[in-house]
């Protein structure tokens, strides 16, 4: 059937009405047959972005594979809150081995499925930012380099939340963590360090790399679906606010995620074989203060006296994202002054 795609927005939001879409565009979560792969009753904190992201991602992967899915999970919040025996929340075959080897375990699963001729069964590996950008980085890069048939999903909450909010290589500059406390001459995490894993994944020229955000769950589902249409190494990096670690209200997770995107702090993109294929545009650019202020991990930037230099640095990084990925069609706020500076 030919159909014209019509977007229905609710007043005051950008939320599209699910009921008004044709079935193939409807949310997996709205489907009666959704699998609840990560079932209710687990022990995640209220407002956990990772639990939300994982539920959408894995259910979408399940739908895309006709429920033929195996997951490998790194040590971390997701592993701990979902499983203590005998109360597992996972409705799918699931294995946790170690903190730093999840990509390699997934490679082994994929190899076993291939040798047994069960290529209809697909493999997802998942971990937090620590398990992905730090301790699991070697295994992840190896899995990418070999182009193993694995979708790796990183739930990035920008620190080691499971062990009590310590700094990871995904922690942004100035953020307060337990190991980058908001004290001294340069409070919070150091600027100019850290890794941009989506770009590193793109540099491996693997078939598919995407970023996603829990305020755009349709986009997240679509990216998981796209990833499962492809064979080989795939990577999705999902931005998942952490109320506990970031010092945000539990009911603000979606809002904080949206602000990360609308300020340019977190670019939402997709790339195939190292080339950018999709960019989620910023609808109305907001200053980074709007994103930083609701988070206690950045409170020292505003009180007792505003740290204008640090805020400007974060704004410059957001502006660079906007320029680098073409996140808005018009010139970014402050671009006249800041363009080309960094």
């Amino acid at each position: 059937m030919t159909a014209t795609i019509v977007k229905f927005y609710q007043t005051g939001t950008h939320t599209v009405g699910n009921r008004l879409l044709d079935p193939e565009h409807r949310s997996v979560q709205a489907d009666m047959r959704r699998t609840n792969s990560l079932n209710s009753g687990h022990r995640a904190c209220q407002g956990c972005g990772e639990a939300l992201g994982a539920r959408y991602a894995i259910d979408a992967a399940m739908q895309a594979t006709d429920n033929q899915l195996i997951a490998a999970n790194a040590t971390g919040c997701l592993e701990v809150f979902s499983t203590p025996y005998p109360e597992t929340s996972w409705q799918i075959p699931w294995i946790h081995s170690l903190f730093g080897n999840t990509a390699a375990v997934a490679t082994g699963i994929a190899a076993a499925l291939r040798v047994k001729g069960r290529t209809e069964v697909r493999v997802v590996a998942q971990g937090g930012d620590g398990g992905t950008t730090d301790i699991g980085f070697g295994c992840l890069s190896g899995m990418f380099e070999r182009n193993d048939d694995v979708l790796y999903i990183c739930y990035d909450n920008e620190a080691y939340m499971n062990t009590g909010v310590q700094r990871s290589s995904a922690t942004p500059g100035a953020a307060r963590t337990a190991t980058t406390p908001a004290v001294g001459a340069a409070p919070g995490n150091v600027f100019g360090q850290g890794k941009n894993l989506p770009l590193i994944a793109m540099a491996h020229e693997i078939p598919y790399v995407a970023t996603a955000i829990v305020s755009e769950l349709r986009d997240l589902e679509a990216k998981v679906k796209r990833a499962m249409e492809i064979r080989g190494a795939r990577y999705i990096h999902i931005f998942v606010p952490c109320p506990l670690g970031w010092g945000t209200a539990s009911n603000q997770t979606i809002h904080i995620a949206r602000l990360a995107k609308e300020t340019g702090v977190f670019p939402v993109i997709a790339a195939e074989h190292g080339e950018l294929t999709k960019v989620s545009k910023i609808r109305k650019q907001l200053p980074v203060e709007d994103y930083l202020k609701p988070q206690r991990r950045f409170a020292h930037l505003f009180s007792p006296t505003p740290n204008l230099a640090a805020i400007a640095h974060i704004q410059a990084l957001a502006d660079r994202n906007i320029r680098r990925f073409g996140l808005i069609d018009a010139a970014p706020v402050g671009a006249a002054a800041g363009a080309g500076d960094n």
Partner: protein
Amino acid sequence: MLKQCEGSHAVAATVALCRPEVICAYPISPQTHIVEGLSEMVRDGTLQNCEFINVESEFAAMSVAIGSSATGARSYTATASQGLLFMAEAVWNASGLGLPIVMTLANRAIGAPINIWNDHTDAMSMRDAGWLQLFAENNQEAADLHIQAFRLAEELSLPIMVCMDGFILTHAYEGVDIPTQAQVDAYLPPYEPRQVLDPREPVSIGAMVGPEAFTEVRYLAHAKQMQALKLIPQLAEEFQAQFGRDSGGLIRTYRTEDAETVVVALGSVLGTIKNTIDDLREEGRKIGVLGITSFRPFPTAAIGEAVRYCERVVVVEKSFAVGVGGIVSRDVRTAMREHPHPIYAVIAGLGGRAITKDSLRQLFLTVMDDKLEALTFLDLDWNAVNRELERERITRRSGPIAENLLRDLGVVAARVG
């Protein structure tokens, strides 16, 4: 079929006959020829239905094996020395999860100072990791133990390290009887996992276990190794029936029946020890040797029985616990609780130093006179040691120890004995 070949190639050919489904490997001397051989067999189609994966580290090698084994595939890897240490966390994980992975360990020293030659420090570093550890005396046994290891591992759902001395065995050319595929198939049935990742029957593997059950889970790992003490001799018997060769088992004694002195050792040095003992027997000395094939599980009862009527035990060990002394000898001592004879630990062959018949003969003559210290380092160059100790006494910045020793010796890699 009897074939003159390198130990590594004998092992590669035999592992291939075991129909491994996933092989993952990272190169480290002296393991390389084994995985090179397997890689070639997968590429040229000799070994079918097998995925060979070149990984980026030993940690990844064991992790891939964990994933593939948990998905029901017969999984194999090989490593040595630093490689075993680098995969250590995954080594413990594989046994904790109860995954029957078989791994060849081409025994090699551990640095620093870096040293590629043979001793048993790598295997001993993982002796408590929950793996079974089988030690081969020669290349035939190295090959045979792999066939038994897959069967044993899969019956118990526990991983097994087959230890063979690096270079001394891996790179030695000997005649090895490589069995036929039909023989191996008759002995080794397809892998039937106790737990498997499969969408048809979803399970969670590797979740957290707290104090309420952790002790029991760990005890069951021990209980399975105790079961292995019964299973290993049974499988060796079946092996003999199928292949016509006596290979494997828990321990192996040689001329111990009336021995007053029993030497205990593991691995290839048993050959030299037997030769030395033959000479001493001709001179009327009552000495024999006990080779430990299964170091984990430790055959406490079998060893206790074998050394029951002797007067003294001397353990020749290619590794030691710094700050304490012998490792194997401490386990042997536990086997002698009922009949506590004197026991001597002799540390020998570290980092590839040759264990010669002359040195062993002198050692055994001394021990038979009960003139040996409880802990001895065979052929230790006391001059070199004392010079360095003196240098450190008089000079604060005395420099790197290894460099000092080699400068004093004035030779580089010219001496192995």
